[in-house]
């Protein structure tokens, strides 16, 4: 008992009372869910073909990785490492599309937003492209690039690029012209205006665009992998479902959720917080 109370005091000192409470409370529904899931396996309310046992989902990891020849082939996306290859190829696409699409979208968006007459013309383009971005492009992408890596990358890139383009354009346009004029009056160059006025001014909008592009892009990527891909987590769960290997489907869905939550929580949320602290503009009271 004393040990337990000492432990709880130590934990509270280390992580803070509120955080412990949050974690403890938040884990309750998950535990209940897992308990119900396990009870389902024991009492067979739903047959195991529909809902697999927890142990089977765990075993699926090792079953999928069974033939993996080692660490180096794992990184080289060897086809025998059936789980890690799909995870890494999905992640690779996300990273590649982000690295290419994000800067391109921001740069072109700022360029378009700087020139008001041009941005007036380009705004409807952005609206339209955003409303069809992602999933609706899949069939045309398959026609253009065939089934495979390029199609899925294209879908992701398309989603990210247009969201970033549109959001940074709107962000730049929302910056008051006074700031731009004051920089120019004080002898700043065009480049100074971009780095000192437009980029910080558009930052809140850009960050919102980033979060949205992750949410929409990740969803579009999964759909694209299912319909027009030959690797990736979406492809993995789709083919597993076709073979009625439900434990692999559950595994894939859980992995996807964990990856998405991790990126949102440890990458995007801190970024947003940092922006608020640095520029303090994200949340505007009405």
């Amino acid at each position, binding site marked *: 008992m004393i040990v337990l109370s000492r432990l709880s005091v130590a934990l509270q000192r280390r992580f803070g009372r509120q955080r412990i*409470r*949050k974690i403890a*409370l*938040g*884990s*309750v*529904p*998950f535990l209940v*869910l897992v308990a119900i899931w396990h009870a389902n396996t024991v009492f067979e309310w739903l047959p195991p*073909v*529909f809902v697999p046992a927890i142990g089977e989902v765990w075993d699926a990891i090792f079953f999928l990785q069974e033939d993996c020849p080692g660490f180096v082939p794992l990184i080289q996306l060897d086809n025998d490492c059936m789980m890690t290859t799909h995870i890494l190829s999905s992640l690779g696409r996300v990273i590649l599309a982000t690295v290419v699409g994000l800067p391109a979208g921001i740069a072109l968006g700022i360029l378009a937003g700087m020139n008001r007459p041009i941005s*007036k*013309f380009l705004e*409807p*383009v952005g*609206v*339209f492209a955003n*409303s*069809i971005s*992602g*999933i*609706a*492009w*899949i*069939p*045309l992408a*398959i*026609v*253009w690039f065939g089934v495979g890596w390029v199609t899925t990358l294209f879908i992701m890139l398309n989603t990210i690029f247009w969201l970033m383009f549109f959001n940074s354009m709107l962000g730049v346009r929302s910056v008051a012209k006074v700031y731009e004029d004051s920089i120019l009056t004080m002898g700043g160059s065009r480049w100074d205006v971009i780095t000192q006025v437009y980029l910080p001014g558009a930052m809140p909008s850009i960050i919102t665009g980033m979060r949205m592009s992750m949410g*929409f892009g*990740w*969803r*579009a990527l*999964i*759909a694209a992998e*299912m*319909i027009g891909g030959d690797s990736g987590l*979406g492809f993995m*769960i*789709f083919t*597993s*479902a076709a073979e*009625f290997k*439900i434990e692999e*489907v*559950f595994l*894939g*869905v859980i992995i*996807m*959720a964990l990856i*998405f*939550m991790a990126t*949102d929580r440890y990458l995007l949320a801190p970024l947003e917080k940092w922006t608020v602290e640095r520029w303090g503009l994200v949340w505007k009271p*009405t």
Partner: protein
Amino acid sequence: MQSRSKLDRFLWSLQQLMKIDAMNLVILVIFVLIGWSLISDNIANPARYLPSPIAVALSSVDMLVKGLLPSYFSDTLLRLIIGSAIGLAAGIPFGLLLGLNRTVADMFHPMLNFFQSVSGIAIFPIVVIWYGNSDVTVLIVILYTSFFPIAFNVLSGVREIPIRYINAARTLGASRFQVMKDVLFPGAMPHIATGSRLSIGFAWRAVIAGEMLAGRQGLGWMIFTGQDSDKTTEIILGMVIIGFTWIILDHYLLRPLEERTIERWGLVQR
């Protein structure tokens, strides 16, 4: 002299016309169409890779005459409306109910966040195993995609309501239901508006993807079979229709609704 002033006046009126947004749009559309047909004229095998705008327009006429386009369109729209209506009708009360108690709200917040991040398209293979390639599958996927974002947003909104408002209402003798109706619901209103727009946005994409994957008739199915049967005109036609439908839904229905709600209810001060 006379003619010059006439020309000036003409130019002036042209400039006035240019200032109107609708005119910009017309000019833009003309430019896009010209560029599109130039590209499609200059590539090999345009019928497969990028048919000209005229071909797409002709195929739309063809599909209209055959009656396919209206039926696909109404199928898709009906699915979206039914799915998101049930999802919203279930999600908003669910979020409010969970928000009644702070502890319960803190408890379910991470779980809703988890299910919100599992996209509806990702659970599609599971639902297919459960219900096969049927209309039920598509409907469940739409329901799932529209339910969790709205429930999560409503719960987040409820959690942001200052606790003293709830306490004040309780002190004045309000029942649980009255707290929900008069404090939580109006307080969460901006979040409800944002959440429903997000929900319907995700649901719209889920409808398209679900139709493609489950093979149910609709706009998503139309563009998917267009790819299978090598009719690129149908793909592009479908994409244009999907785009315009979403623009109309979003800009003329959801966004004004959201803005008005936030204007009306979004004044909760801390």
